[in-house]
Structure formats: C-alpha cells, structure tokens
C-alpha cells in the first residue's frame, strides 16, 4: 500500500470499526453506547507494512492490538528456522484481549499484509471492560471461538490429510471473512498468503501445498489467481475437508441470545 500515509483516513476507520462491531455483535447484541465505545478503540490506528511484527515472543505486552484492515498471524519460531503459524487474525479481530496479563509473550504476532492496526493500552482495555460488561462478555465469546478454532487447527495438522488441511482452511476463512463482508457473492475473497505461509500453517512443505492446490483446482473446487481465492463449490469443498462451521458461531442469532433463551434468562 505504498500510497497510503501511515495515518488512516476516516473511511478506513469506519470500515474497520464496523468490522469489530459486527464481529462482537455476533456474540452479544450491542446497543449504541457499546457500539460507540468499540468504534473509539480504533481512533489511533496506523497503517503498518506486511512482514512487521506487532509483538515478538519474549516482549512484555502492554497493549492489545485491534486489526481494522488486513491480516495478521500468530506464530512461534524454532531455533533451526522452522515456524508454525497458529492463527490468522482478520479485520475486526482483537489480538488476544488478555495479552497484557502475560508476563512476557510466549509467541509472536506479525502482519501477513499491510494492515491498519490500533494499539490499545492495557488501562483503556480494562476500563472498557469495566464500563461495558456486555462488551467484556462478547470478548469472552470471541476468545472461546479462538480456542475452538485452534482445536480445529490441531485436528488439521494432526489428523487431516494434505488436501483436507487446505480445504478446511479455505472453508474456515470464507466463513470468517463473510461475517465482515469480505467475501463477494461468488464466494471470492482476497487471500494474501504465500505458499510458504500456507505450508507453515498446515505443517506441510511448499511442494505439498502446491500439489494439493493443483488437486483442488483440478477437482473444480477452487480457483486461485493473483491472491484471490474463489470457492467454486463450497458444499463439496466442505465435504472434502470434513468442515462443519458450527465452531465459528456465525449463523443465527447472537450466541449470548441463544444461550439465554436456552436458560430462560432475560436478554
């Protein structure tokens, strides 16, 4: 994004704020005051370059990062140069709400694309949660979904075959990006990932990633061109991957609403 100034303009900020509001609103229905409070979190956001680390293993975390645009990833590096990617963070995602409670980071967070990122001081985050308990609960739901996602990723590297690993990842990203309206009606979304990054995510070599992508193409399941992925037949890809989107909690009424009606509690 060479033409972007490091400071963001208002439209960037609006779409980024909308992403976090939409995302947290999937968990707990939010009122105007809560939406405004969330929108304010992004006010000091800046554009940062692909490849930069937001925070590195060993650092003392003092703030939370809110991703307004672009992609980030959570990873750990090995002494011999190996790397495992443990999560993708997409627009509207807060990178570890409780991060500042760690003495030091046990992993790193880096940028997979140029990204608009707001750095929220720990005090502000704590204050927000004290003031808006429903936002705090929405963040708790988001953390639970992050954990469920991590379990699926564990299943990916531990049990699924090469083809399934990529198929599962592509389905998951599609569902997650759909929430923040980054997937068009033909099931196409920007995939700012290299084969090396896909390999480090799925525990494969780039050669195996490449072969698996070819196979998914030949089967008529995906089109991948210029970092844009189209899922041609979502149901069939989901079947290949053994993908069930329930863990992402993106369908139906907000999660908290469903829980309360199950428990016969007022909303």
């Amino acid at each position, binding site marked *: 994004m060479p033409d972007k100034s490091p400071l963001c303009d208002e439209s960037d900020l609006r779409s980024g704020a909308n992403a976090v509001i939409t995302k947290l609103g999937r968990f707990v229905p939010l009122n105007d005051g809560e939406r405004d409070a969330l929108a304010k979190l992004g006010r000091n956001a800046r554009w940062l370059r692909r490849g930069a680390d937001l925070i590195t293993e060993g650092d003392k975390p003092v703030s939370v990062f809110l991703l307004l645009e672009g992609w980030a990833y959570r990873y750990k590096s*090995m002494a*011999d140069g190996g790397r495992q990617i443990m999560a993708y963070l997409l627009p509207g995602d807060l990178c570890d709400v409780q991060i500042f409670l760690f003495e030091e980071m046990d992993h790193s967070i880096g940028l997979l694309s140029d990204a608009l990122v707001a750095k929220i001081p720990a005090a502000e985050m704590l204050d927000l949660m004290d003031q808006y308990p429903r936002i705090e609960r929405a963040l708790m739901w988001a953390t639970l979904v992050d954990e469920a996602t991590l379990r699926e990723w564990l299943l990916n590297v531990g049990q699924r075959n090469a083809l399934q690993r990529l198929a599962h990842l592509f389905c998951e990203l599609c569902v997650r990006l759909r929430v923040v309206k980054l997937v068009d009606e033909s099931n196409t979304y920007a995939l700012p990932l290299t084969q090396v990054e896909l390999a480090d995510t799925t525990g494969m070599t*780039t*050669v195996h990633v*490449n*072969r698996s*992508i*070819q*196979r998914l193409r030949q089967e008529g399941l995906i089109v991948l061109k210029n970092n844009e992925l189209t899922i041609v037949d979502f149901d069939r890809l989901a079947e290949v991957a053994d993908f069930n989107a329930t863990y992402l909690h993106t369908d139906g009424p907000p999660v908290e609403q469903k829980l309360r009606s199950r428990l016969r509690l007022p909303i």
Partner: protein
Amino acid sequence: MIAGEFDQRKTARTETFLAQTSAYKTRIKTDSADSNALLLLVAGELIAILVELDDESHGEARGQWFIEATFGMNFGSRPDLFASAADAANWVSQHVCHRPFALNHQNGELR
C-alpha cells in the same frame, strides 16, 4: 535397480561411508506429474526419498529436486529445493554422515 554407482576410489577418508551408501531409482505416486524418485540408503536403511519436481505447476522450481520424506533422523528444518538429485543427496548425507554423498558423476544416473 541401482541408480548411482558410487565412487569406488578407495581413499581412507571416504571408504567406510562409500561402502554404506546406496540409491535406488523408483517411481512415486504424488497425485501430480512428479513421479521420478530416488531412495537413499545408508548402511542398508532407507533414510530419505528424493523426488524430481516435474509438474508444470511448480513453475520455476520445475526440474529441481525435493526431499519428499526422511526416516529415522531428525533432519530439522531443511532447504526446500535442490538443483539436482546429487545436491539433495549431498545435503542428506552431509546431515547424516557429515560427508558428501560421493557419487560417480560420470555415469550420469543421478542428475
């Protein structure tokens, strides 16, 4: 079918190692056009499978060699690709025996 006849020059430095290494050509199923493979053995035990990247989709990497799998050794992180089977075999053998895989380049079987 033995693909690489190893350099049988009896130098003190390489003798033991040469006696212990061998390579076999084979075909491999990869769900792609990549089908030429070499099995690398040390002391009669399979330690690595090398594969020639032949599928069009590999783009610039086509024609290079890849360590498809390793066995029984901690190979750690390794280079993705090698210009030739000999380079890949050398890397494996350096890693396992701290010596190059001394092939007989004249017979041209290991590319």
